[in-house]
């Protein structure tokens, strides 16, 4: 029987030491990393036959639209659902993301990303859900730009590779910054443009970006993150000048 070898970094909790375990699971054509993790859950034994526990990992949609199953696969951060075994060198090495606290094994706590969305006020402040008639018109061109930005699934790939984003830095990161651009280009969101720019001008804001440009290279949804940051750089500079002359 053809098998696939895995090497998985495991950790019981944040305050215990990590360790490695190797696994061998049956091969099936088209299988992905998730299939293998389920195989291990069904038969929790290491490659040398030692009984162990099922691996903990986060997953939900399994089609790369929810962002849950992000981890480091053979050294590269990505969603494990779309990591097909046929395209990976063995042993396939699985590790948790390093920029977020480990919960267990491959699960990490990405709460900081959702908090960042609160900080930058990533929403349209509608007057209410009552029937207030049609929304603003939008050109197909603006819809294209907006749609590309609105596909961000808060997966954290861009932050994993960002040298400026770590547990000792308050940087909000590329994902949240790009959301500022999204809401500021919406015809209604534009009305709060300055308020949102304010949120990224203080500590941990846009000036913390070191322009490494790693983020845009790993984004699984091809979001133009560096274009967003460049655009926001211009906007915040213009706004700062305007504020200076206003005062």
């Amino acid at each position, binding site marked *: 029987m053809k098998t696939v070898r895995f090497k998985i970094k495991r950790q019981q*909790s944040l305050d215990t030491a990590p360790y490695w375990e190797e696994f061998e699971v049956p091969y*099936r054509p*088209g*299988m*992905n990393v998730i*299939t293998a993790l*389920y195989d291990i*859950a*069904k*038969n*929790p034994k290491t490659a040398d036959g030692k*009984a162990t*526990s*099922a691996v*903990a*990992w986060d*997953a*939900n*949609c*399994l*089609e*790369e*639209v*929810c*962002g*849950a199953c992000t981890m480091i696969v053979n050294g590269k951060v990505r969603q494990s659902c*779309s990591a*097909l075994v046929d395209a990976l060198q063995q042993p396939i090495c699985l590790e948790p993301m390093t920029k977020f606290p480990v*919960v*267990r094994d491959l699960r990490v706590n*990405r709460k900081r990303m*959702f908090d960042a*969305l*609160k900080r930058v*006020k*990533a*929403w*349209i*402040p*509608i007057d*209410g*859900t009552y*029937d*207030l*008639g049609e*929304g*603003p*018109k*939008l050109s*197909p061109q603006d*819809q*294209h730009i*907006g*749609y590309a930005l*609105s*596909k961000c*699934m*808060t997966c954290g790939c861009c932050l994993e590779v960002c040298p400026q984003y770590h547990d000792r830095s308050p940087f909000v990161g590329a994902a949240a910054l790009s959301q500022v651009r999204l*809401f500021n280009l919406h015809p*209604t969101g534009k009305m709060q443009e300055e308020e949102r720019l304010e949120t990224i001008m203080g500590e941990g804001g846009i000036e913390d970006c070191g322009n490494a440009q790693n983020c845009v290279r790993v984004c699984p949804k091809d979001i133009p993150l560096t274009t967003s940051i460049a655009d926001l750089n211009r906007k915040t500079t213009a706004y700062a000048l305007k504020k200076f002359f206003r005062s």
Partner: protein
Amino acid sequence: MAVRKPKIIVVGGGLAGLMTTIKVCEGGGTVQLFSVVPVKRSHSVCAQGGINAAKNTKGEGDSIEKHFDDTIYGGDFLANQELPKRMCEAAPAIIDLLDRMGVMFNRTDEGNIDLRRFGGTLYHRTAFAGATTGQQMLYALDEQVRRFESENKVQKFEYWEFLSLILDENRICRGMVAMNLYTLEIQSFAADAVVLATGGCGMIFGRSTNSTACTGSAASIAYQAGVHYANGEFIQVHPTAIPGEDKHRLMSESARGEGGRVWTYKDGKPWYFLEEWYPKYGNLVPRDVASRAIFKVVKEMGLGVEGKELVYLDLSHLDRKKLDEKLGGILEIYEKFVGDDPHKVPMKIFPAVHYSMGGLWIDTNHMTNISGLFAVGEVDYQYHGANRLGANSLVSCVFGGMVTGPKTLEYAKGLQKAYESFPSTLYDQAVLKQKSIHEGLLKSEGSENPFKIHEDLGKLMTNHVTVIRYNDKLQKADQEILKLIERYRHISLSDTSYGANPVLPFARELYNMLHLARAIAISAFHRNESRGAHYKPDFPDRNDAEFLKTSKMSFHPESPRLVYEDVDQRWIKPRPRKYV
């Protein structure tokens, strides 16, 4: 004195749960929102093709009446008609609302929201944001809820799982018990009302188009606590999905809405069997009809592509730019998971379990038969009858939330006795009961693995309780589930620690899946007719005299009880359902 604010618990943060939450906050209440995943990762993200509303912007003469008629006819007349009617009436304003929230719907040259075709209708009625409409809508509602969260009107409990209801001596729901999935800690939560917005139950079938969170566990807990499970036998099998080892990935109906064609080889030539058999609707027949046709071609006639259980879904004749603009999301999925480019070669697809039309019984206020417990979204049974039309699920989730939110507040304000007046023992006892189940599972030293039992359940249900149903096989399925329940008594967990143990929550969900699976199989056994997604070759016709009725299962550990209830047919009288 400050006015007491109603406190509502919402379990589940997909479209229905988030819309309910928004409405409660807007109406002056506060919400504790529970979800097994961060709400932004809920299964609603998987909805692709769009959302229906008769906006009639293409000069075709579409109307709310036609949307309503298509919905009832598409559901083979099994849906109670009041809520679907109100949903179709509300739909155009729902699109406007989502648009105001910033959903990036595709646009026409004039800057208006574009509409496309979908199954079971002859009109352009479906608004869409590429082929990731559910994701875009979920994000918009998630953003609005985050705004309320920043105003302290919503408290989120993400990575918390619902374990039981708390009912007082009059069987009124006063709160619930949940566990923290990072610690396994069990806690009770009191509230004026509890809303279950926990989605579908595709995981009962092992592999489906559903997300891993769609276990039906919460629905089953409510069912075991006394809520009727209605029309459970109506499981939608979507005609076009990519078969996979871990899940079957949906290839949206919008692919056919934009001109995609389904075919296979017959006598060495492409055979467009849907177009031949259903000249009027062609590739856009409703899902139950298309799935049965594919089963016939593949299983009866043996004409699957390459001799396998596959047929083609072909987009290769369509304009590349148009495809990328309108269907980019699903083309990307196909390319990433299969490796072929659907711009160039036809996709290989097969039907897969997709949606549960049935669910928890609710009245027209979305309240279940337990006072204070509401259900909304895929977990409720209203709206879709015996078969759901494509792009009606998103609108039913949002509309359902718009009804449920205000109704929970109305209910809370009418309560004689508030949850604060109950002794803490009511809550403590409920927690103790759940703790003892935890302890029992952690100590259990059998030889059975819960993930293996789940695999066997999935195979059983997929083989016997999907597109084509026979009574002997349904009966066998129920007997086999009973054997799985017996095996469950002998499980052991590979992880017996506290903390973020993934095995214990799964074991608890599995128990609930097994009991819900029985409800589905038994209600399918008793319905001796063919209607919508429920098809029995031995009873090939619809039988309105006997079965134009809602089936309602009541839980009993040995033999669940089934009763039938009349269907509200106030506006549209049943007629033969044909799409030729």
